[in-house]
């Protein structure tokens, strides 16, 4: 079976510094893969590389990103654009800044449907209403006519989730979709993602800091550190029998209901130091040399 997403030996450099140092990872059809790692590990860079959103000064120096067997990096611009937003979708991190402030919600969703599915104005409107109902917005007719600043953050994230699933994507990249929301809303949004991906049969690459969330919704997971994959596998295996010291430390640093608070230990600083100095050493090897 072809993987929905297969990243192989991906290297991304910003100037002379390597941000991703040969990352490999795949997401099977319908699978939810968690991508964890501390801040700066390169999680967002990986997502952006798949979506073709790398910052201007960034370059892919080696590797392959295949979507359903087709190399995204090698294909024609127009072909890639027809996949993005339709077959590959994004749930962004910050719902406050991710919608266009001067356009009504209905129009933003409708445009997407018309752009990718070629729906008529009327059909797009009908489908938009359905989509909003699907993300548990109770009065879609009213919300359609509102501007982003007129609805709450949780509501905006629902709209963005509706947009992500609007064209039945095979792959959804969710980059910390709940970090900007408060705790109760976080749970609702997670349930929503879970429900929609089941209904639409989409695979999800779920970027998060939260191992609790990974344990709950991800079948497999990848641990990223300093641009490298430290560990990956079935979530239960990784969490129950972590092989790498960093994963153990990360686990130990995660608050859990079944463990007293004083047992909370931060990731040991010398472990992080050791990993970073190794990463620094890898930076001395020219990034382009591998290409």
């Amino acid at each position, binding site marked *: 079976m072809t993987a929905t997403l297969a990243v192989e030996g991906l290297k991304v450099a910003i100037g002379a510094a390597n941000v991703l140092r040969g990352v490999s990872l795949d997401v099977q059809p319908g699978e939810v893969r968690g991508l964890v790692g501390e801040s700066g590990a390169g999680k967002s860079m990986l997502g952006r590389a798949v*979506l*073709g959103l790398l910052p201007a000064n960034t370059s892919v120096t080696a590797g392959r990103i295949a979507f359903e067997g087709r190399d995204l990096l090698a294909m024609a611009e127009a072909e890639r654009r027809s996949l993005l*937003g339709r077959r590959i979708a994004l749930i962004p991190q910050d719902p406050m800044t991710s919608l266009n402030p*001067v356009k009504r919600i209905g129009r933003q969703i409708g445009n997407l449907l018309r752009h990718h599915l070629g729906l008529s104005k009327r059909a797009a409107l009908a489908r938009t209403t359905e989509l909003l109902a699907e993300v548990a917005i109770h009065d879609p007719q009213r919300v359609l006519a509102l501007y982003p600043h007129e609805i709450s953050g949780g509501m905006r994230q629902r709209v963005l989730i509706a947009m992500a699933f609007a064209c039945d994507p095979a792959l959804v990249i969710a980059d910390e979709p709940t970090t900007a929301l408060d705790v109760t809303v976080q749970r609702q949004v997670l349930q929503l993602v879970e429900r929609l991906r089941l209904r639409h049969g989409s695979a999800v690459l779920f970027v998060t800091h939260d191992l609790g969330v990974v344990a709950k919704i991800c079948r497999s997971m990848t641990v990223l550190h300093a641009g490298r994959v430290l560990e990956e596998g079935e979530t239960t295996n990784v969490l129950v029998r972590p092989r790498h010291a960093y994963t153990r430390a990360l686990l130990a640093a995660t608050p859990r209901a079944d463990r007293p608070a004083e047992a909370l230990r931060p990731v040991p600083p010398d472990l992080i130091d050791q990993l970073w100095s190794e990463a620094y050493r890898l930076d001395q090897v020219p990034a382009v040399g591998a290409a």
Partner: protein
Amino acid sequence: MRSGELIRRLVLVPPTLFGVAVIVFVLLRVVPGDPIAMMIPPGASEADIGRLRALYGLDQPILQQFATWLGQVASGDFGRSISVRQNVLELLLARLPATIELALLATMTAVVIGVVAALVGILLRGRRAEWVVDGGIGVLLAIPDFLWALILLLLFGVLIPLLPISGRIDPEIDLNLRSNFFLIESILTGHFDIAFALLHHMILPALALALPFAALVARLLKASLAESEDQDYAQIARARGYSRPNILLHEVFPNALIPTVALGGVQVTLLLGGTVLVERIFSYEGIGNMAIDAVINRDFPLIQGLVLTFAVLFIALNLLVDLMVTMLDPRLRHG
């Protein structure tokens, strides 16, 4: 801008105009030189001068003069011009439409040039050709309108005499129009030959006024486009498979327009101020040109009328800009 705000702004108009009136009235009478000195023939007797002063009320104390004038203005009487010997209000109403039409044409030209330049510039963002656009904008911006007027006059009036260089229309053309908005009326009534003849005369002065303003629009808009393009929603639009030109036009442009109109709209007042010299250079019969004569002749009533007219135009323009910004930005509409 909500209706409460609009009312507040309208309420402030009369006091603002009153302030302007006080300042111009006092300034005129403090600065040396008066209209009588300009009009008396050499060798006039002291008694004659005194009679003339009394005729125009200039022998009264300033406060008295002001009160009299203000009372008249409030009832729509701006007095008689001393140098032209005509009713000031009639003079203004005859000349103002010419200036409004010129300023409108210049503004529209500037917006078209500025928007096109900004869009081309942003499409070339990050490439070497972007510098060409930025450089062009810089040059346009560095040369003031009256200099453009002289350059255009020399180029297209003298060196390559393509266009007329003076007046509003050829005197032999029979206008037969009802209003003084010659251009607007002739277009609306389908007299395109007249409209064409008018435009022929207006192109050079309008272009002189438009070029620096176009550069300003281009620079403001291009900067706002660049800023908006870096926002999350525009980046995410790329991840949805929209092409860059599509995103620039449909997602970024409506957002970038808001600061551009807010900052650039107010600058139309500069363009209006520019009409004074540019109309003079092209002998265009608007209020700007008339203002220079009024000042040379120390024509107090006419100067006062002109200054108030400009003040009303500036206030109206600022209100209009705020209304437009409100229309463009939904966040301002709902508070």
